[in-house]
């Protein structure tokens, strides 16, 4: 299972990529394989504020609907509109094409609390 080393991970299976003071957020390869084929992605709008550990959207697969939990707090500055028509990107390319939002974090210390790829791998193996 692919777990890029340059990303940070949340216990709710989101990945976070740091980019010039902003963060790009998506769900992990493990999360998409647990959910199965994704059929719908619901995301916030540009300008919305999201709170760490609170739901900021949802992903629907053929078997269930799952909340997306924000790994960090902040303001949404970009949203991946392509996922509306192509939810399959979440299965095919979870770390590239299926990025979900870009956020301007309001509290940088929240990023430090996230897991490394190694720690995240340990967590999913224990489950």
């Amino acid at each position: 299972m692919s777990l890029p080393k340059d990303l940070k991970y949340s216990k709710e299976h989101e990945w976070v990529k740091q980019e010039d003071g902003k963060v790009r957020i998506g769900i992990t390869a493990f999360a998409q394989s647990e959910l199965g084929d994704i059929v719908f992605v619901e995301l916030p709008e540009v300008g919305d504020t999201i709170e760490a550990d609170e739901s900021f959207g949802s992903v629907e697969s053929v078997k269930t609907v799952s909340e997306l939990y924000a790994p960090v707090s902040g303001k949404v500055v970009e949203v991946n509109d392509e996922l509306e028509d192509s939810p399959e990107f979440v299965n095919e390319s979870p770390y590239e094409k299926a990025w979900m939002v870009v956020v301007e974090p309001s509290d940088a210390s929240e990023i430090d609390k996230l897991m490394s790829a190694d720690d995240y791998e340990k967590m999913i193996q224990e489950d």
Partner: protein
Amino acid sequence: MSEKQHALIFELSEPGRVSYSLPDLDVPEQSIGELVPTNYVREEPPDLPEVSELQLMRHYTSLSNRNHGVDSGFYPLGSCTMKYNPKVHEDVARLPGFAHIHPYQPVSTVQGALELMYELQNSLAEITGMDEVTLQSAAGAQGEWTGLMLIRAFHEANGDFQRTKVIVPDSAHGTNPASATVAGFDAVTVKSNDRGLVDLDHLKEVVGNDTAALMLTNPNTLGLFEEEIVEMAKVVHEAGGKLYYDGANSNAILGITRPGDMGFDVVHLNLHKTFTTPHGGGGPGSGPVGVKEELARFLPVPTVVKEEGYYRFNRESERPDSIGRIKPYYGNFGINVRAYTYIRTMGAEGLRKVSENAVLNANYMMRRLAPYFDAPYEQHCKHEFVLSGRKQKKLGVRTLDIAKRLLDFGYHPPTIYFPLNVDECMMVEPTETETKETLDAFIDAMIQIAKEAEEEPETVQEAPHETVLGRLDETTAARKPVLRYQKS
């Protein structure tokens, strides 16, 4: 199976073929333009299928034969109580005094129907340990919403406007948080512990002076009895909240315990589950709501009251605090007739046996299946139980595959991937109306599937093999749905 056997009726069409001939016109013909405003008159004739009467019969008979219901096979769909609907109910519902009456008839001419409603209100109150019951709500979800609106009216009457939160366990039916939201509350989750029960310590943390209610099924959605219910009720009541009982799992408790005795203030029952009225295919459902005395003044009007041997509907003026009607007329009356017939034919002892046998059947199945699947909780279950497909998942066989494989054996699969707090979950509810032979045959099929998962996983992964159509492409159906026939 030939192509034609699952053709759509449109695909069978041949121009000019007819099933029915209309009689000759014996009144003067009028132009459609004089009868209907021209902007409503279609310019092209509709593309209706043209088939013979025999083709029509074969087509729909073939479709109906492909349907699966309790009358055609085992249907162990967890939390849905898909049990046999005794056919005597149909005879009673067709009696002219029930079937050929109108809601606007003077009540003096429908005293029998009102008596039945009155007696059903009282029977359901007795069964649940409540003081008053409304028969108006037409389904479980409407019952939930009604019950929560009653709780809301109660708090508002006390000036408790800050009670905005409804607590639901993480194993709850999805309708619970949905009903709470629609009733204007915020749903708050309380966690389950490792025994599958509500974590009492966590409940104490989330309860507060903003708590409107705790919604609970007991036994819960894992089929486990919430043993600490009395303590939980105390915690919620001491904080000023109310307890709402979701009656989805009442099939486990009839005549044994009652929500009212456990400390619940409001209850709904699903008559289409526990009380054997038709379930699925549109029902229609019926979700009566019972309340304790202090909430009765908020109940929807009218309910049926009895005065000196005469039955009548109570008036709004008698219930000024009522939340108002929640449905036109008096609920799904024909369904309520069937439920009342069930209660009267079973009697008190019979209803208790229903639950005893439902619980016995579920435990028998769970113990026989436990060596082959992962049974996540050790204690006895009530009327249903959960299994996890974790062992099979490691072999590359998912719970969805197991469910699809069961179709080859002629069974409706159990509820899958629910509750959400059990990985690869299967929720099995056999009900009391099945024989031991049926239970054994299903268990044997499940054991065979567990062996196939080890020895020939592709048999399970590629199932079903015996159905008219094989594995459907659910993903494309969800991503790019085609919702109506279009001529190619």
